[in-house]
Structure formats: C-alpha cells, structure tokens
C-alpha cells in the first residue's frame, strides 16, 4: 500500500494555539481548514493535536497505521521486546464520515467524500523500559525504533510518537478526515491541520500530513527543492528518509538542530530559512557572526523552494516561510490565541474579531510559546 514515489504537492495549512494552555475541541480547526477546501484535492488531510491525552501524558502515544492484521501482529511482536505497552486500543473513528451540518453546521456542500478504506488505526501508550536507556537517551531510543519500524516492519507505519499529542491523518479532504477521527471529541491547546493537493495519487494514508516524530509535528505547504541534499545531510546523523515525502526532512531537521544540537528554535529557523548574505553582511557584529557560522555549518540543512510551514511541539508552535516567500502565510492574534494559516479567511472563519493580523516576512519565524501550564 505504501507508495514509493515522491509526490510534489500544493496545500492548505492552518494552526491555532492557546498560549495560556487552554484546551479547545477540534471543531474550530476543522472549520478553518474546511474553508480552504479548494486548496486540497481530496487526496490527503490531517491534524496534529497537543494536550489530548492528559491522563497518559507521561507515556509516548504511538498512533499506528497497519496495512493488515499480519502487520499489526508483527509490529506488536516488535514492541514486545522494545517497549512496555501500558495500553493499546483502536483509534475511534466514524467510518464513512463526511463533514456536514450535524458535525459543523455550516458548509454541507463541502463534505462530499466519505472516508473509506482506512488502514487499521491503533494507538499504543508506551513506556521505555529503564534498562534500554543505559547508553542512549530515552528520546534517542524512541527515534531509533520509530525509524526502524517505518523502514523494517512491513505494512506498519508510525503516524506519531510524542507524549500527550497525536496525528490524525489520511486520504480524503481534511474536514472529512477530521470528522472521521472524531476530533470534535478531543481537546487540545495546539491544533494544526493540513489539506493536500498532490499532483499524483498517493493512495497511502501515511503520506498525508502532519509528519511527526517525537513531539514534533510538521504541516507544510509547498515543495522542498533542496530535498536531495537535505536528505543526504541528515542520513549520516542516523535519520532514515524512506517515506519519500519532502516534509519528513523538515521534522528531522528540527529534531537534529533543536533536540540534538540544542539550537534555540529561532536560530534553527535561521538555519533552515537563512537570511541572504547581502543582509547578513549588514548585520551588527554579534548577529553577523552567529548567522555566518550557522550558514557555514548548517548549509546542508538550508531549505530551498516554496514553502510555508507550521511546526508544532509540546511547548509551542512556530510558523515560517521560505527565504523569498513563495507560499502564502498569514498570522493573527486574539487575546492568548495565536493563529496561522495559508489564507486570512481561514482565520477569520473561526475568529472574526482579531486583535492583530499580519503577513510575516520571508524567512522570519513567528513563535508561539506556552506561558502557562497545560490545562488538565
């Protein structure tokens, strides 16, 4: 079922975050992405949600996709020697769901494509046995095993692997996917979403966005023209890029730069969407020194091509564009809420009355940070 071809795509993205940590159900994000229906073509949609498993916040929540029962059994065998599975259950769904009045109440004409033929969707709440982390950190251990499952366990795919978060994605229009996964029943302090317009038929649920690793999630509108070198840059660090979606490089680059190399997120964004040399040369000395070094050392991580990206992680949300802003992105604030979307209308749809609306400059990160604790 996995499609081994790489699929260029156009897209819609939307994200919302409560910086005070207040949790909201999924209806708003579904309505926001539904408004940009025409930016997708029904071949992929998905959501990332943070704060959805408060009672299991200490465990890694693995959202799994299996092609068949055999793959599920093989994967569970794999888990057996690797993790302590505390709880596993079917991910609740509404098969054949469409986005319509009784779930959203506004645009019945949009929900046109019932979600059918899903893979087996199962979630596992996982602890890492202590004896496994003598030589590597717990998160490193999880990353290695996620990589291993995705490349070596046939028919099994890890859709997300973070704590207190999850990815809900599949083939279909995003608003229908949202209804299918019953997102109206989850509460999260960060929601991101993605509607896909691939120029090729993927037929594979794992290929939809968001792309997740640990608590990183990426939704991405655009194409990474530098994919070839980004992939070769990441490989020596142990990342296996086998999903053939350019979005995975973004997730891995953040994992490498922020988690492993401990760069502040703003500087990681400077590496991935670097300022131009002509501007760097005019910067004050300290800044010039820092950015010059970043470009010298992290040149292989520079993302090139048209993109707007929303990165989610457990403490916040970051939006940024490519170096010359070839894809749209609008941001807005209202009280403690931060919104980002491909179109302003997608924000106005769910928050008509805003304090501030702006289009961030090319290559500039818009950073949303938790200032409170997550509401339980």
């Amino acid at each position, binding site marked *: 079922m996995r499609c081994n071809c790489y699929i260029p795509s156009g897209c819609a993205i939307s994200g919302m975050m409560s910086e005070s940590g207040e949790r909201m159900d999924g209806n708003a994000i579904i309505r926001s992405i539904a408004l940009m229906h025409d930016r997708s073509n029904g071949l992929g949609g998905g959501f990332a949600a943070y704060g959805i498993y408060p009672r299991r916040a200490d465990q890694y929540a693995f959202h799994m996709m299996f092609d068949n029962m055999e793959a599920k059994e093989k994967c569970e065998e794999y888990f057996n020697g690797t993790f302590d599975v505390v709880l596993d259950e079917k991910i609740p769904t509404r098969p054949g769901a469409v986005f319509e009045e009784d779930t959203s109440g506004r645009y019945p004409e949009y929900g046109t494509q019932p979600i059918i033929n899903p893979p087996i969707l199962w979630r596992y709440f996982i602890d890492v046995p202590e004896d496994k982390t003598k030589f590597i950190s717990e998160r490193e251990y999880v990353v290695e095993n996620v990589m291993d499952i995705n490349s070596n366990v046939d028919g099994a795919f890890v859709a997300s692997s973070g704590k207190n978060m999850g990815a809900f994605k599949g083939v279909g229009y995003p608003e229908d996917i949202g209804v299918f996964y019953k997102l109206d029943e989850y509460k999260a302090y960060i929601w991101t979403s993605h509607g896909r317009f691939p120029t090729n038929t993927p037929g594979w649920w794992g290929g939809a966005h968001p792309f997740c690793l640990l608590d990183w999630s990426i939704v991405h509108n655009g194409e990474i023209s*530098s994919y*070839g070198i980004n992939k070769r840059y990441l490989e020596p660090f142990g990342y296996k890029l086998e999903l*053939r979606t350019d979005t995975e490089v973004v997730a891995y680059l953040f994992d490498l730069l922020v988690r492993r190399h401990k760069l502040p997120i703003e500087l990681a964004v400077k590496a991935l969407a670097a300022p131009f040399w002509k501007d760097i040369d005019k910067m004050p000395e300290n800044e010039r020194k820092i950015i010059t070094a970043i470009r010298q050392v992290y040149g292989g991580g520079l993302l*090139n*091509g048209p993109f707007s990206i929303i990165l989610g992680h457990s403490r916040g949300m970051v939006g940024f564009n490519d170096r010359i802003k070839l894809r749209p992105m609008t941001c807005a604030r209202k009280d403690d809420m931060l919104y980002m979307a491909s179109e302003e209308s997608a924000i106005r749809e769910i928050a008509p009355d805003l304090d501030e609306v702006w289009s961030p400059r090319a290559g500039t990160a818009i950073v949303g940070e938790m200032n409170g604790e997550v509401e339980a």
Partner: protein
Amino acid sequence: MSSQIPPEFTVIIDYDRCRRCRRCVMNCSFGCMQFKDKVVPEHKKCVACHRCVTYCPESAITIKKNELAYKENANWTPEMRQNILKQAETGGILLSGMGNPRPQQILWDHMLIDACQVTNPSIDPLREPMELRTYLGRKPNHLDFTRGENGDIELGTTLQPQVKLDVPIVFAAMSYGAVSLNAHKALAMAAKKSGTLMNTGEGGLHTDLYPYASNITVQVASGRFGVHSEYLNTSATVEIKIGQGAKPGIGGHLPGEKVGDEISRTRMIPVGTDALSPAPHHDIYSIEDLSQLIYAIKEATDYTKPVGVKISAVHNVAAIASGIVRAGADIVTIDGFRGGTGAAPMVIRDNVGIPIELALAAVDQRLRDEGIRNNTSILCAGSIRNSGDVAKAIALGADAVVIGTAALIAMGCRVCQKCYTGNCAWGIATQKPELVRRLDPQLGAERLSNLLTGWSHELQEILGSLGVNSIESLRGSRERLRGIDLDEQTLNLLGIKPAGIGQ
C-alpha cells in the same frame, strides 16, 4: 639519424592574399615560418598553436591536418605510429603537455540537470538574489550557543579558519616555471577581482605577487621549492600537493634552462640547475607523516589558514581522502585523470588514474558515510570545461571546482600540448622574455574574470531553474541529476538515477 616522422600538419599560405609583412615569421616560436622572398613554412615544425593564423592581417594562413601522413588504419592510428617512430629515433620517454586527450567517455556529458515546472516555481536570477558564496575550510558538525550576561545569544563554538569565495571556482595549481610570471600575475589579479583563489603550484611565490596574498593558495610540494615561513604566511590557504591527476605517482622536472634569475630566487635554487620534484615527499611515507606535515604547517601559520591536501584520483581515492581528512586536512582537492600538466610522461597521463566524476562521487559519499563530510571542503579538479560541468560537480558533492586548462584557454592557450618545450607562442608556458611579453597580465586578468563572471551568471540561471537561490541547495543534491547512456553500476557509483525516473 634523420627523422622519418611525417609532419603532423600542413601549413598553407595563400600567396594571393599574403602581403609579405612577415608577422607570421616573427610570431612563430617553433621556427616553422621562414622568409625566402616569400613565406615558406616548414611543415614538420608546426604544432598548430595557431599564433600565426590569429595574427596574420590578411587571414592568409590555413593549417590542416596532414591527412594521409599515415595510411588509414583503425588500430594503428597515426598517433600510435608517430609515437613509435619518435621512440625508435630517440629511445626516450614520450612527454606531453596538457591533459589526457583520448576519447574515453566523459561522464559530465552523460549527466543532465533537473528544472522546476508548476509545483515548485523556478526563480528569476535577474530579480531575486542568487547566492554563490562558498566558504572553504573545516566546519564542526554542530554549533554551541551560550547566553551572554545581557541575555543575548552568543556563539560558543570557535570556528576554524574559513576562506570566502564569491564564486565556487578557483584557479588550479600552476607553478611559476611551468608558466610565466605574467601568467601568474594574470591569475592573481583575476582571483582578486573575482573574489576567488589562484594557486602558486610548487614553484614558490614571486615577490611581485605578495600583495595578492588573500587570494592565493601557496603550495607545498615534494621539492619544497620556495617554501619558507613568509611564503606560507603570504596566503589565504596552504596546499600540500601529494599528486596530480595528469601524473599520479610521478614527480616533476623543471629543466635548468628555464631556471633564470627570477625563478632561481623564487624557488630558492641556483640559476641553471634542474628543479626536480621527487615522486613522493621524502618525509611522507604514511598517513601519520602527512598529519605531521599538516600540523607543522598549521603551527607555522598559527592556525589562521585552512591547510589542504591535493591528491590525484586513483582507484582507492575514497579511503585515501577519508584518511586525509582525519589527518587534519581542511580542504581535499581531488584531481581526475583528465587533469592538465605542463609536462608528463604520455603513458602515465593517458593510462593512470580514474575519472574525476567517479572519484568525486565516491569521496563525497564516503565522507558522509563516516560522518566527516562537514569537516572538510572538497575541491574537484581535472577538466572542468564549462559552467554545466561546474553545476554537475557541485551537485555530486564538490564545494567548489578547480580550473586550469580552461583558465589557460581564456588567456590565449590553444591546447597545442607543447607546454613542456618552453616555446609557448602565447606567453603562457614559457620563460623566454620575448614570448612572456606577449601575455599582458592586465588583459589576461580581464579575460579570466570575464570567464568567471560568465560562468557565475550561468550557474545562477541553473540554480534559478532548479528553484533554489543558494548554492548550498545544489551542493551534494544528486537528486537533481539524472544519467543518460550509463550502465547501472556507473549510475550507482555516481549516486544518481537514470533519466526518465521521476522523484
């Protein structure tokens, strides 16, 4: 013994047009043209350097291949037989100048570059910035940051020295001795003008070039000619030359007749003595010896300059390069089997080494597999002929490329392959004052800079069509290359897919 070798070329003078100005006679440095109430060429001496053809005011001269000098035979080609005749007459080793001219497959011509359509827009280099800036030098695998007292983020890592190139193209090592001082001056001036580097080769640095220090790579080769502390420090980078693509494993020989006053002073050898570069460095018999020399040079330059090592592309080049990086080299230059030379035994030039395309692909991949690719810069040398070659080399993984022959051609060289004779009619590969004078350094520099400017614009067009606006996004991005007419093994070695396969 009188020579039986038939002339290679026939020089035809159109006497109806000739106005007997004798310019051709004065210009021919090979003594081919004589004046006996009219111009009479001695065909045997013609090397087809085209000096006379270029300067004849009446366009009265045509040079043709001496077609039936040898009866046709696809196996015993004229070249084979000429070489045998030469050796039968002299008993010597055949020498030649310039790179391997044989028709082995040129892999650059079997690679094609991608471009954007619809899903990712191409970028117009005339409207948007398009960056070619490249830094040579060892980079760490990651950076550390600290917070200063005022809360500002500060860089915690001290980077090793980095040398900035405005274009990812540097000039190849060509020694003063092999080429003229005017050629050296032209290269240095052009390097400065275009924001890149020239390379002294192994013959030292003439004091006239000291002002160009920040655009000069000084070389330390097995003969150690002209190497002293001031020399090492009058540079942007230092290069240890282990091998040269045209003659891997072979030393060099500058005949005493070329060692005049200036060369004697620059090379620090007596006037008129032969300058012999041994095949190996006699203090480098292993990788640990190389490491000692690298660090000796780093000490001598106070760790202010990247120290590179140049090797020729031989079978085991990837493992050798890896050793060199671990030995401390900040730059590795790989010179392919088509690389040029002032003089090399023909049998070595034409039969030893491997194509640079394969060597480069192997080295870049090996260094990545070992997680040390960031620790060095790779320079790719050995017949880079145009900006397409440059783009392909960078996509295979080079940080920058090295041009020697292309630079000489820009200065006037006609690739006549007679560099070892000292008679270069274009004032390049000669020390004869009357010939050296023919090359105006200022003009040469302008032509060289023009070439780099032209290639830079073309590289920017290529980047734009690829939808990227910085050379880093092409560097090592083999995904943007496809092969045509290549077998599977070669495609695998190059790390590229065949044309027709999408992403």
